[in-house]
């Protein structure tokens, strides 16, 4: 049960961090405000990387505004796991004498990696697949405009099928190692069926854009957050 429980928790954490919401929250902000925000984060992380942990409270607040505490907890958990792995492995390697690293420096690595990774996850969550569809349509890639929708459809469906399959395997008293191949196959099968049932739909060029509701409030919040980040980074 322990291995199944851990595995399911991990998959659910990834699922919640990436696919918890539809086109709500910051996804409704104007694309220009999202580009400004992403640019300000990149500038802050490259110009003044030491200060990146100070951005975390602001990013967390934006995360709460975007998708609530449930998302923030999942995203922080996921990025903390990655950061802890990075810092832990670097610290363990330092014990071999190749270079020196104090425990405090390792903690700083955790803090910086968490801030950067959380920023990346937040930006990823702000991207609306409908926006990508519309962008591809406008750019003339009309044969491929459905693909972002398909990716955002298939990945959470696959993760969900995967956890259901693992849970059924647990009820059948199977080991997690023997359940992973069929659970993974269920994701591939979902792809096959979607290919079959949407055969013509996936071969048709988009003819118009998909309307996406916009939120002025969320756009203004992102502009204000971008200016704050730039001020903090360039101080």
């Amino acid at each position, binding site marked *: 049960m322990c291995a199944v429980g851990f595995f399911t928790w991990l998959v*659910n954490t990834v*699922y*919640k961090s990436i*696919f*918890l*919401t*539809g*086109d*709500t929250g910051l996804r409704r902000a104007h694309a220009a405000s999202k580009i400004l925000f992403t640019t300000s984060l990149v500038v802050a992380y490259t110009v003044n990387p030491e200060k990146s942990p100070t951005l975390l409270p602001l990013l967390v607040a934006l995360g709460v505004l975007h*998708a609530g505490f*449930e998302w923030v907890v*999942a995203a922080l958990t996921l990025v903390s796991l990655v950061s802890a792995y990075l810092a832990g492995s670097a610290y363990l390697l330092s014990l071999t004498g190749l270079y020196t690293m104090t425990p405090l420096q390792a903690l700083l690595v955790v803090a910086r990696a968490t801030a950067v990774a959380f920023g990346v996850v937040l930006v990823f969550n702000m991207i609306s*697949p*409908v926006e990508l*569809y519309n962008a591809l349509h406008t750019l003339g890639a009309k044969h491929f405009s*459905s693909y972002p*929708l*398909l990716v*955002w*459809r298939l990945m*959470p*469906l696959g993760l*969900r*099928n995967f956890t*259901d*399959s693992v*849970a*059924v*395997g*647990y*009820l*059948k008293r*199977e080991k997690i190692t*023997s*359940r992973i191949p*069929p659970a993974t*196959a*269920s994701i591939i*099968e*979902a792809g*096959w*069926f*979607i*290919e*079959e*049932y*949407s*055969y*013509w*739909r*996936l*071969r*048709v*060029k*988009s*003819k*118009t*854009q*998909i*309307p996406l509701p916009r939120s002025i409030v969320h756009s203004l919040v992102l502009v204000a957050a971008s200016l704050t980040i730039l001020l903090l980074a360039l101080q």
Partner: protein
Amino acid sequence: MLVVTGRSGSGKTTLVRAVTGTISAVGGYIRGAVHLCGRNIAEARPEDIYSCLMYIPQEPWYAIIGYTVHAEICHALALDGRLCTRADFAARGLLHLANRLAHTLSAGEVQRVLWAELSLRGARVLVLDEPLVYLDEASRTSAKRIVEAALGEGVAVLLVDHNPLFWEDFEPRLLVLEGGGVLYYGEWSRRVVEELTNRAPAPRAPRTSRGVYAELRGVWFKYPGGDYVLRGVDLVFEKGVLTAVTGPNGSGKTTLLKVSSGVLKPSRGLVARSGPAIYVPENPLLYFTMPTPREELLLAARGDESRVLDAAEYFGVKRVLDKPLARLSSGERRRVALASAYLYDFAGYFVDEPTGGLDYESALLVLEVLEALAESGKAVVIATHDERAVKRADLRVELKT
């Protein structure tokens, strides 16, 4: 309107694949030609086929491309060159679902979305493969009205249904398939349909409870990012009886079965079971461990070949034992999953839509097996919209939205 019926595995879905030009997607091919809206589908442009045809497949959850209901419906319309509006959603009673993530919809809700798409797109040919299986009564009535309106506009409808009588009012043409061939093709004939359903179900043995198997106390459950689906459920499932869980689309039937069997942990409350349980999903592919029925059943029977052959005979899957599971018909997959669960010998069976899309004979067989399990002292709980199944149940749990 043409209604196609026949036993599970008789070739109904293969016919649909041939007609919709999707047979090559499963590695098949056709001899001869299929013309849709005056064009040979082998030579027509995808745009021409898409604007002509609307197809609702048997596994509706795989027919959705949009990650939200809004994206799904608006994308389907955008490919036809139409902008979706709020009024489109309001008129189809889908405003409350517009922002829902597609993978969180129940199977019934997915079918409702596809029916809404169908009514909005204005295709000239409708191909519908068991399109009512997961719908509640109200949605079935509304689906019937959509078909009526489409027929009034001169739309061609090819419909596969295990229950052709549902469409009798329209006096459709009837095609009965058997073993890949035509058993009957012609005008609507109630006699022909009734001949397919002439085996009377075995008389129902009186069954009484043999004690509590599972108890749910104050159970609440919510999916990540969603509202509570179950709210303070107090319930017992009993050994020795067949319990049917019913309710409208989205009322939480599948969730109740998953929580009761142990697939999901309740957000709050307690679930106590007095023995191992199994959950057989409405999509049986998620149940399987092995690639073929024979290997799956051998795993369940711990290598006992004779038990496998007995179970295969009992569940009518002997002729498909070595076929890849992903290539079986929906009904065959369902029966293999039940055969496997049967061989494992669990104390509690939670089966989601056990008769979904099954023809009369296969549904009868599955229900008889479930009843036999209950008679042997197992707790058997099914979630269903199928009146045939509800009638055979000893107890009924009705959920509200």
